[in-house]
């Protein structure tokens, strides 16, 4: 059988996720309680039976590397299977940082140089979806394509975030636009490419192109056979705070199509390095817990509604959490109220504090294009003092402490830094 090697581009900064990516790469951002975004792509790779994988990292790779470990959580460790983490390495020059996605692959050309591979599957670790890659690969081979791009219809107003294409009757791409505001087609690139290996090696060798989306694909459209493979199913780009929140909430909707367990999406529970396993979640006699996702180690004594709780979250008696995403080991103390907030790991919200309530029309003044829809972000290990009022569209930076709060109020659209 001709083999496929998978390259997972996990270097994305994902800056629109704001404080969630301050200490981690976008693929390592927690998702859906127990997962990280990259789990979806890693699980798709494993579920498709691909056994040789490279993860190209660059930006803040530590939590990502811990999480991937030796790949055994996705059954990618063994004599004939494996996952290699390829960070940028200093080459002839002192500083050969990856200049883009294609440059990252060029700097690791050795990994795909073996003749045993006929095709290279290039993936990104930025999306939440479940997909068997084989129908795509079979289509690519059937068309004798040089490049095949996985594509999915998006709402017309979203096309400005994507490359979009028009296909002919045989699904060959006849028209391509990169991030067009009023695109001629709403069929968007999923950032998934199958390359004929020889074509990819040759192109990377003869050009200095740095980016797949911006350079390699437009070049291929001119000189090679490029096809689009339309995918039907759940797929979300979670690159913005609102999209990230929406996709998390899909876990609570029976008909959303996001079904991680049924899709065999796996994560690495042991990467947390705890000396014990997190016990089952404890829901106390005083709790009220509806329409929510709850993870191991949670202790719920207050009220939760329409919320996603990661492992180890504590909601104390008399506290409430609504329409929110609360990450690992965060504690919501007695009488505190949280709504429409995304609270990162190990945050302490003090007694009777209120977070997220306010007038959604006032966007964040520093990042109006990140927070504008009535959501508040609290960074990792921040401390919200008792009785504090934090409005909506607010950002509290990671590790902010009591002394950083000059008053007990942070108005709508406000930002508090350490």
């Amino acid at each position, binding site marked *: 059988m001709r083999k496929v090697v998978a390259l997972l581009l996990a270097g994305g900064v994902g800056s629109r996720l704001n404080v969630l990516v301050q200490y981690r790469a976008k693929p390592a951002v927690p998702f859906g309680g127990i997962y990280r975004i990259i789990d979806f792509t890693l699980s798709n790779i494993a579920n498709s039976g691909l056994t040789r994988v490279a993860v190209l990292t660059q930006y803040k790779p530590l939590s990502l590397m811990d999480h991937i470990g030796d790949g055994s959580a996705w059954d990618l460790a063994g004599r004939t299977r494996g996952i290699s983490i390829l960070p940028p390495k200093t080459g002839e020059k002192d500083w050969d940082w990856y200049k883009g996605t294609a440059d990252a692959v060029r700097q690791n050309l050795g990994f795909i140089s073996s003749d045993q591979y006929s095709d290279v599957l290039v993936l990104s670790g930025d999306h939440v979806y479940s997909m068997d890659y084989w129908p795509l690969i079979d289509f690519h081979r059937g068309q004798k394509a040089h490049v095949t791009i996985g594509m999915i219809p998006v709402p017309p107003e979203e096309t400005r975030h994507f490359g979009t294409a028009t296909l002919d009757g045989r699904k060959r791409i006849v028209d391509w636009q990169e991030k067009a505001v009023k695109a001629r087609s709403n069929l968007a690139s999923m950032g998934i490419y199958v390359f004929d290996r020889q074509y990819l090696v040759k192109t990377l060798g003869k050009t200095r192109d740095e980016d797949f989306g911006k350079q390699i694909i437009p070049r291929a459209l001119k000189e090679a056979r490029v096809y689009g493979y339309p995918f039907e199913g759940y797929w979300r780009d979670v690159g913005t705070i609102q999209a990230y929140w929406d996709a998390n909430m899909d876990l609570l909707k029976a008909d959303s199509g996001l079904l*991680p367990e049924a899709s065999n999406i796996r994560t690495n529970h042991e990467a947390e390095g705890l000396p*014990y*396993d997190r016990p089952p979640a*404890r829901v106390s006699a005083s709790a009220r817990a509806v*329409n*929510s*996702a709850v993870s191991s180690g949670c202790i719920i004594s207050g009220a939760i509604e329409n919320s996603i709780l990661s492992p180890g979250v504590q909601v104390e008696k008399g506290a409430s959490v609504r329409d929110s995403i609360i990450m690992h080991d965060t504690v919501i103390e007695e009488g505190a109220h949280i709504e429409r907030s995304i609270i990162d790991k190990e945050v302490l919200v003090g007694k009777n504090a209120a977070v997220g309530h306010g007038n959604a029309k006032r966007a964040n003044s520093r990042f109006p294009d990140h927070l504008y829809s009535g959501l508040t972000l609290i960074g990792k290990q921040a401390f919200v003092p008792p009785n504090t009022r934090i409005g909506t569209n607010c950002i509290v930076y990671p590790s902010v402490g009591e002394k950083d709060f000059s008053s007990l109020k942070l108005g709508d659209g406000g930002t508090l830094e350490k």
Partner: protein
Amino acid sequence: MKNVLAMILAGGRVDELDVLTFLRPKSVLPFGALYRIIDFPMSNLMNSGIERVGILSQYRPFFLMNHVAHGQPWDMVGRNRFAVILPPFKGREASDWYKGTADAVYQNTDFIRMYNPDLVLILSGDHIYRMDYQDVINFHIEKKADLTIAFTSVPGEGADRFGQGLIEDEDRRGGRVVRYVEKPRKALFNWASLTIYVFNPAVLMDALNENAREESHEFGRNIIPSLVDRARVYGYKHPGYWGYTRTLEEYWRTSMDLLGSRPRIDLKAWQVRTNLAHGEIRDRQPAILGPSAVIENSLIYLGCEVRGKVFRSLLFPGVHVEEGAVVEDSILFFDAVAGREARIARTIADIGVRIGAQARVGGKGGELSVIGMESTVPDGVTIEPGVTVYPNVEASRFARSEYKSGEIIK
């Protein structure tokens, strides 16, 4: 630190646990909405820094092997660390099935010699407790004992099921054992054996060799009484929680100690580990509580889906409680399903049990009901408290719509 070799007696099935141990050894009985009972001694060993463990098993050892996974969940895989299963083997002359706890260890004396430990720690694999075995070991060394046995206060009822000791008050930790009687008809002394033994290897070997010539081969009945008079046998009084799980009622009561606002069993403080890679645990999504869910004073694990009501219950991974169902004071093992508007009370439902829509199982008063692995209770059937359903009973085996207390459905 002393070189300690641990041996866990994880062999048997227990008659009083009935259908729950028909198909599995007691030591892998699920407990606490996630764990298996053997996770408790294994985690205690790990937390005590004892990383060389032999597990003696003879009944359906596959389940145990699968769960223990060479000790990897407890970090016992390494050059000088291991957890191995020691099944009985055929001797040169005959089939030498383990004939008792002492015989099980006797048949593995070469295993003990191979590792030449300073001390042998013998445990049973069927209790729920937290203990730093180093405390017992230090006591043993300090007292220059040949054998140290851990004890707890004799429980009020069922004293006839325990070995009982009379312990001299040397210090608050315990003292010399002056009398020991295995399972007396009534309570004789204040202290009940926890079947935790610290042995000097030479004493153990001599006692086992001597016992091998006798008819009965049990630590409690034979070895300990024979040593009390002629060796330095000490009793260590375990100061903490001790949970028995030898009868259904005990198992249920110990399970309920996980609940309440200050649970007597604090799983996080105890630092318990299990095998997260086990097929029944791994790859579960977060528990989903539906829009109409009510859940109070209960434990739930990943993979559960609750759309009905759950009170004072333990839900293992993958349990589904459908719309309108009410589950009270019950323990539902992995992937059990409570159908729409089913009512379940004081019931233990084993792995994969399906309770049909509008079925009624158990009741608030009366005895526990038990439903064996993979059995199906059909829609609308009523099962009174104290009914036992065997494993793998299909819906078609239920001929009636009502079953009375004490009935057994096979």
